[in-house]
């Protein structure tokens, strides 16, 4: 045992020196790449059963074509999945090439056996995808939000209206080409909100433009009267 010890210790010592010198060389280590989480609740068999292709992502994701979405969603609903969320993404300025401009992800979750699956649909400008409202009523507001903020149209949605932005806002704010910063915000019929004038209105020294309607602050103009109930009651 004793003669073995120094023999063991020497290579270990060398290795240790070599390791410390190499690890000291890169002062800025690159961040570790994202690896898929340990599949404790594996959805791979489910994806295979539905005949979908698995997307290589950190979260369990399956790729679906717009034409196939209804069938896949119905099968997942029959398995007991619920619709948690609908995510719309505009990939037009993404660093890596993507198949199409938009992606709509349906976040599905099984409330009993706790599997989670994202259904990813790729879409180009002008393409539509079927609404999941006939399958899950949760899709109602979620798809309205994606429509409102990204301008993706869901066919078969019973009430596809704006849900978050003002009625007369032009454009879809979460698109990457939506103007930001000092660019005036555009509304219908040529009205616009000038950022500088808006800030001036905030101080109270100037009438400014205090809302998206672009009217004078109440009390400054002569033609401003308090709002009245329209004939026939509120709409």
């Amino acid at each position, binding site marked *: 045992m004793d003669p073995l010890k120094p023999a063991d210790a020497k290579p270990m010592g060398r290795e240790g020196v070599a390791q410390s010198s190499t690890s000291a060389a890169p002062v800025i280590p690159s961040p570790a790449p994202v690896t898929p989480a340990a599949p404790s609740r594996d959805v791979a068999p489910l994806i295979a059963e539905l005949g979908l292709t698995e997307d290589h992502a950190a979260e369990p994701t399956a790729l679906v074509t717009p034409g196939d979405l209804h069938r896949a969603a119905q099968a997942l609903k029959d398995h007991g999945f619920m619709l*948690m969320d609908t995510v719309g993404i505009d990939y037009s300025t993404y660093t890596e090439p993507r198949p199409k401009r938009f992606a709509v992800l349906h976040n599905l979750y099984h409330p009993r056996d706790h599997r989670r699956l994202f259904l990813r649909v790729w879409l180009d400008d002008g393409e539509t995808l079927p609404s999941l409202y006939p399958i899950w009523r949760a899709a109602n507001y979620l798809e309205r939000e994606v429509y409102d903020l990204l301008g993706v149209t869901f066919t078969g949605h019973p009430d596809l209206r704006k849900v978050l932005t003002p009625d007369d806002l032009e454009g879809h704010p979460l698109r990457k080409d939506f103007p930001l910063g000092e660019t005036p915000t555009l509304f219908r019929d*040529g009205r616009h909100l000038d950022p500088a004038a808006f800030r001036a209105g905030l101080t109270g020294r100037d009438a400014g433009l205090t809302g998206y309607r672009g009217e004078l602050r109440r009390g400054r103009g002569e033609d401003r009267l308090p709002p009245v109930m329209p*004939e026939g009651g*509120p709409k």
Partner: protein
Amino acid sequence: MTTTDKPGTGQHGADQPRRPAPTHGAQAPGGTLAPEQMQPDHQESTSAERLHGQTEGQMHTQIMSLNVGPQHPSTHGVLRLVVDMDGEYVVKVTPHMGYLHTGFEKTFENRTYQQGVTYAPRTDYLHSFGHELAYVLSVEKLLQADVPERATTVRVILHELGRIHSHLVFVGTGLLDLGALTPFFYAFREKEALQDLFEAVCGYRMNQGYFRVGGLYRDIPDDWAPRVEKFLDQMERGVTEYTTLFAQNPIFLDRARGVGVIPPEVAIDLGLTGPNLRASGVPLDHRKDNPYCGYESYDFNVITSTDGDSLARFNMRLLEFGESIKIVRQALRRLKPGPVKDPNRKISLPPRHELETSMEAVIHHFKLVTEGFHPPTGEVYVPVESARGEVGYYIVSDGGSMPYRVKIRAPSFVNLQALEYACVGAQFADLITILATIDPVLGDVDR
């Protein structure tokens, strides 16, 4: 169907004359658009569209549209409901959201990851720590950051105290809507004590922004843990007090029992989460089912009920106080001294004293403050159980120092869909009860 190019409709466009100057009368409907300016995708709808042409009620009366809000005490924020009524009975509820829409998701895309912590708590301002935690956990999953144990334990404590804070507001204001004024003062007595604790730990009473990617902003004060203990004793007495005060109150029971029943299959169909889903009998709680921050090692129960009515949703929150208190007590016992930040200098700011001696620390500090860190490309989602349900941040990273896209899974937004279901056929007074027990936070709805 984009709104920009629809020349055929003739509703708007270059040839459309500008809207006439506002005049008094029907031309200026004060807050709504003139009917000729309404587009098919606008939030406004006519009663004929909502009711598919139905005008006669079953009570041989005209269906009347009633506008509730956006400034109405029972909406707890700025929510506008257009309620179509047949006599005293509700035929259809159409919520109009967006009054608090501030574009947080767009703002996230133009701020560094660490700055994003400022915006996350402002969505759900009653359980801020839930949103903060969900955001921070998602970014940490992207970075594979190593969070020290003390930071995780403090996060659990604050996450649960935040849940108590949110439920206290629910109990106080929910009963206020039903006409019971006293419980409001009892609940806000505890809420003030709780906000003192939040203030002691990070300086803010609301919208804390205390968590950081990789840990916490700073360590908790020395006397904080005993103060929390003291608060928990006060809170336990408070819960007993609330229960004896109104859990048996006949007026309250009359207004809540059997009102707004949501069966479990409907709750799943509507995407409900949190106490609203558990009140319908589905025991889904991400603290148990998808544990984060070491929740699997805490001993607590998931409260469920099978009634699914407003009373069940109410009692759910009362019982959850006890479970949160249990978790905080266990977490306080585990609190050991140690670091509260990831030691990785690429994520956490170096300690102040190092800046005076180490050039490398200065460089790290400068890079982190001006540019921030660059997580690898990828898309992550971590669900967290907030007081309202599942909160999750779907974060897309393109390798830059700002997120490419952040999508907030806001539980209030989805839960609000239950209002349209549960109110139909109920009386108008029940609508207030149902809205109170669904417990939406409008900041969370509109983001």
